[in-house]
């Protein structure tokens, strides 16, 4: 349904999107996950023909975004970030306008509006001005205009940003529902969002794809470092810290009320070694637990790795990107 081949976008010197390659099948709900300024919105703008790619090409619903822009736009429903709407129109007027502007034939418009209102549960506000309805409802109106012509592809840029938890849940349910009829791409920097709604995740950082897989597979990935929780009694904290830091394979140790958080190489040898060393010291081992990696761990590791690479590739500016990376993580 959607394929991107060597997609690049340059803004002056800055390479905002760098050689993206991905394919999305019909009926998938795919999440673009990445820190702010990773290139998610830029990619979406290229897919919706807001502007053309600098290099490479993308094909949406069987049409090329550059040479067949009009056909692509007929087949895509887009919800930009911050949901721009005409606040001085009523919901019904606005949806009727969207239907007409998207070329829904005159005879079908009433029905298209009714369907969108029903699917997005807008019945109670349909005759109110958009300026007077809540943020959650505006988001629904935004989704309503995206689906009004029943396009096979939906592209949603941060559809749940700025909503309260109840609204977020409703919008997620709605997106899942919409995903039954259309292929959906949504972008987010909120992790639970992708594990709840998406069948596949594409992690983008610094304009490049860092990983793509199902949320389950990503979470099951082996981390380079494994977080271990270690409970030790019978010795002063400082001494234990000192000792643990000296062990082979241990990268980082913190303590918190007698519990030590160890980050060690993801190697089967490390945990038995830790246990043995503590016992040999004559201390009491209360707890030893390696935490299962979450999507968040994987995401943070991928992002921080990409930023480290970015910093390394620009030695003359090394100091600055590292600082920025720290903030984003």
């Amino acid at each position, binding site marked *: 349904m959607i394929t991107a081949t060597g997609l690049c976008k*340059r*803004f*002056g010197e800055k390479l905002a999107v760098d050689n993206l390659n991905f394919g999305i099948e019909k009926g998938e709900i795919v999440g673009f996950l990445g820190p702010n300024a990773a290139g998610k919105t830029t990619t979406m*703008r290229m897919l*919706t*023909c*807001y*502007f*053309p790619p*600098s290099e490479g090409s993308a094909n949406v619903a069987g049409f090329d975004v550059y040479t067949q822009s*009009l*056909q692509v*736009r*007929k087949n*895509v429903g*887009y919800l*930009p970030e*911050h949901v*721009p*709407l*005409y*606040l*001085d*129109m009523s919901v019904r*007027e606005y949806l009727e*306008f*969207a239907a*007409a*502007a*998207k*070329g829904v034939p005159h005879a079908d418009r009433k029905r298209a509006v009714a369907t969108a209102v029903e699917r997005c549960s807008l019945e109670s506000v349909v005759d109110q001005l958009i300026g007077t309805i809540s943020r959650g409802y505006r988001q629904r109106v935004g989704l309503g*205009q995206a689906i009004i012509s029943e396009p096979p592809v939906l592209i949603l840029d941060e559809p749940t940003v700025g909503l309260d938890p109840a609204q977020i849940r409703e919008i997620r349910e709605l997106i899942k529902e919409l995903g039954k009829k259309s292929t959906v791409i949504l972008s987010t920097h909120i992790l639970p969002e992708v594990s709840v709604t998406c069948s596949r995740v594409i992690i983008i950082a610094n304009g490049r794809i860092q990983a793509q897989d199902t949320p389950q597979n990503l979470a099951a990935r082996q981390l380079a470092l494994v977080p271990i929780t270690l409970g030790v009694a019978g010795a002063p904290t400082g001494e234990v810290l000192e000792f643990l830091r000296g062990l082979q394979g241990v990268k980082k140790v913190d303590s918190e009320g007698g519990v030590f958080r160890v980050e060690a190489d993801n190697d089967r040898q490390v945990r038995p070694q830790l246990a043995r060393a503590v016992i040999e010291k004559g201390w009491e081992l209360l707890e030893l637990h390696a935490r299962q990696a979450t999507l968040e761990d994987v995401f943070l590791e991928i992002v921080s790795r990409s930023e480290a690479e970015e910093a390394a590739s620009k030695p003359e500016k090394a100091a600055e990107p590292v600082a920025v990376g720290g903030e984003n993580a």
Partner: protein
Amino acid sequence: MIALMSKELRTYYNSSMAWILTACYLLVIGLVFVILLLQFGSASTRASANPMGMGEVKVMEQLVYPVMWWMAFLLIFLVPLLTMRLFSEEKRSGTLELLFTYPLTEFQIVGAKFFSALLVVTMMVLCSGSTILLLSRLVKIEWPTIGVAYLGLVLLAASFVAYGVWASSLSSNQLVAAVVTFGGLFGMWLVGVFQEAVAVVKEYVGDPSNLTHFETMARGELNSHDVVYYVAWTVLFFFLTMRILESRKWST
């Protein structure tokens, strides 16, 4: 394009912007008409009192022409207020981004904005024709002259609106758009005023001012070069607006 146009017209008339501007326009035209009528009245009394039959008065030249001129002149002030929000507002709120992802061409988007604003101005100008209708009950009116004058007025309005739409596409600030429009239109009028004084301008630039081209039409002279001037001006700014909108695609 029809969809976008009807949306724009609805915004104009729902927000009362069009109503207020039309009302202001008609009020000022009415005042101007009354003042000119009184002046004309005293002039014709004086003329008829002249036993030598000197100082004959011409209704078309001394009353209708000044009224038409004021109708055109006032547009310099009103068109900026009408066109300022067309693109600026959508740029600021981000709705323009969404519009660009609809299956609409730049031509359709600019066309819808241009024609909806032109329609509002045309309605405004046509309403002001009530003064002429009133006059036609009192004196004999040369209707072909009025026809040409109104054609000139609509062409002038089209050139003003095209320029205003272009100015609106430059900035996301409505005020900036209005000032650029007003400055440009007023500047063009000044050029027309000065060209009589500065021979060099007249010789090398010809008639650059929008309003001077209208002055011949308001007298009932239909010259192709005046029509061509307005059409060229309108097409130029229509085209420039399209280029401004497309400029988002130029970053490579």
